[in-house]
C-alpha cells in the first residue's frame, strides 16, 4: 500500500508540474507583483491545463496524507523526492528540455537514495 500511495503521489506531482510548466511556457513570461497575482488567478480559471494541474496537486496532497498516516515521516518526506526522477525524464521527453549533467547526476543520487529507502 505504501508504494502504491507513493506512486500515486509522485505521478500526480509530476503531472501537475508538467502541466503547469507546459501551460505557463505557452502563456509567456508573467510578473508576480501585487497586480500579477490577480492576473495569475484569472489565468488559472481560464487555462484548462492549469486547472487540471491543481486537481493533480490535490490528488498528490491527499495521497501524501494517506502515506504519512501509514508510513514513517522519515520515509514519506524523503521518498516524495522521487518526483525529481520522473519529472526529469518527462521534462526531457515531453517538454523537450535539455537535461544537464548536474540535473542528471542529481536525479541519479535521488534514485539511489529512494532505492536505499525501500530496502
Amino acid at each position, binding site marked *: 500500500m505504501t508504494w502504491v500511495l507513493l506512486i500515486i503521489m509522485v505521478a500526480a506531482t509530476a503531472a501537475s508540474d508538467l502541466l503547469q510548466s507546459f501551460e505557463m511556457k505557452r502563456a509567456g513570461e508573467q510578473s508576480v507583483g501585487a497586480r500579477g497575482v490577480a492576473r495569475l488567478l484569472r489565468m488559472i480559471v481560464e487555462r484548462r491545463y492549469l486547472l487540471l494541474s491543481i486537481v493533480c496537486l490535490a490528488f498528490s496532497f*491527499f495521497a501524501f496524507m494517506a502515506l*504519512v498516516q501509514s508510513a514513517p515521516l522519515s520515509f514519506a518526506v524523503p521518498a516524495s523526492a522521487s518526483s525529481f526522477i520522473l519529472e526529469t525524464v518527462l521534462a526531457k521527453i515531453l517538454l523537450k528540455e535539455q537535461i544537464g549533467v*548536474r540535473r542528471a547526476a542529481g*536525479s541519479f543520487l535521488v534514485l539511489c537514495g529512494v532505492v536505499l*529507502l525501500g530496502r
Partner: protein
Amino acid sequence: MPFSTKTTRTYSLLAIFLALRAFGNLSLAWGTKHLGETLAADPRVYIRSMAAPYIAAGIAMLILALLVRLALLSLADLSFILPMTAIGYVLAALLGKFSPLHETVSPRRWLAVALIFAGAALVSSTPQATGRIEGAK
C-alpha cells in the same frame, strides 16, 4: 535597504519556511496516525479528517509555508531557495526520530536521506531556463 538587513530577512524567512513545512508535516503525520479511520479512496474521510485538530493545524502550517515561500521568492533567487528547500528532507528524518513519533531511523535510512538531500540540492541548483548562462554561485 542595506544588504545585511536583506540577507538577515532572507535567512530568517527561510528558517520560518523550513520550520513551518517540517512541523506542518509532523502535525499532519501525528494527526493522521491518530485519526482512527483509514484515509483511502473515500473523499468523505478526508473531509471529516480536516476537523481533527492536528490535521487542521498541519494543513494551516503548510499553507502558511507556501505564503512565506512566496515572500521569500520576492527577496531571493529561486536558484538559491530551491536547493535550500532540500534541507526539508533531513528535517523530516530528524523530526521523525526526535519527535513524539519516535521513529527508528536506521543508518541505511540516514544514508538514503543524505543521498536524496544531495541529489535534490543538485537538481535544484541547475539553471532555470536552458540556454541561459549558469551563475558562478
